């Protein structure tokens, strides 16, 4: 099933924060993780993720550091900050409230 770009746009911030909650990651790794874990549903454009990561960094939700790689170019890893964890919790709660409300409508026998 192909993802709705508008839906993806609205959720990508939540997804990015969630990925970084598990472990620090670099941009391309995040794109691949999103694709793999969603079984190909989220095929996020690189052009969308990197500016988002920079914006999250500017807002203090993540911080970045360069890590040297053996025999490979260094990579920029992103970590979730304490502020980012609070933001993730807030967004998760909002998302759950939203999906619950949508489900109530979709699953109702009479609308």
């Amino acid at each position: 099933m192909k993802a709705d770009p508008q839906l993806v746009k609205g959720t990508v911030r939540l997804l990015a924060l969630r990925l970084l909650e598990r472990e620090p990651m670099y941009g391309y790794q995040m794109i691949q993780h999103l694709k793999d874990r969603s079984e190909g549903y989220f095929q996020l454009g690189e052009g969308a993720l990197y500016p988002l990561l920079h914006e999250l960094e500017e807002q203090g939700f993540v911080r970045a550091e360069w890590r040297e790689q053996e025999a490979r170019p260094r990579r920029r890893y992103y970590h979730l900050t304490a502020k980012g964890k609070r933001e993730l919790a807030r967004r998760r709660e909002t998302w759950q409230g939203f999906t619950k409300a949508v489900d109530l409508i979709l699953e109702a026998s009479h609308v």
Partner: protein
Amino acid sequence: MSEFNAYLEKLRAALDISPQRADEIIAETRTHLEAKAAELEASGLGRAEAVRQAMVSFGGVSEMAGQFTQANGGGRTYWALRAALGTAVMLTGLFAAAAAQNPSGALLYSEEWLATRLLGNPFAYYGVTFQLPLSLLLMVPVAVLSGAIAAGRPYSLAAALPALALGAVGLIASSQEPMIPLAPVLAAVVLVLWYLASLGARAAGSRSLKRRLLVPCAVLSLGAAIVALPELAQRSVFAGALGLEAAFALMVLIARKRRPLEAARMARVTAAGFGAMSLGVLGLCALTLATIWARVGADSLEGRIFLAWAVLTTALPLGIAAAAGYDWAHMRRVASA
């Protein structure tokens, strides 16, 4: 790898952020493109096609530059903003110096009053009213407004408001002789405070702090500007030019997110229009200066003060025109990337 150099150089040229931050973005993008191209190559594509697809999937240069610039909080302070700050500081100092030397008890006389006292109405000869230096202040907010809008940065736009107030109140003051320049000095102080606060906020990495500090500045400035509107309306040429620039600026603001390329092109028109206005005023200033020099010389104290004022205000539009040129050149790079 060299295949990405041209793309990355274009991206760097179009970024409007600090050089250090741009370096980081370029390095990160290069790493990404190389990894992506290697992956595509491994899937069976030829090297050239893999490189091409990696760049295509990353995005167009101007679009990406716009997104990175916006995501990084706007970046560089525009030259127009620096020009506005320099003007505010210069005027404050000049007002203070003149007030300290003025023996008459009034805090300060406007240059129009001085000119009339020294020369009668020197510009009756040219059929124009002598109102030039203080009216020039109006050019400062126009410059800042153009630069801010061209950059598509709301906080820079807010920074233009104190300058707008400075110009508007300056115009009011120029019609009252002798005048007490409390309002323009206050507006200048607000502008300087904003600038220092924004530097501090940027150093602290906080955009929200910057926004909070800007709100009272913007409210104060808007209030002063509204009070000054009737006077602005009387200066129809300047008000018309300001309105035209503001209309362009508004269009850029509306278009910048959905149609960044068109917005960039429109911003070039705005900046170029302002530059042309500045150069026109520069010519008028030079004429003023030449006339004053020919008729008065620099013998008296008031003459010296007035000449210093005229020299400084003659230099001002040149600086602002240069600032507009800088903004224009940047937007040209973005639009052509």
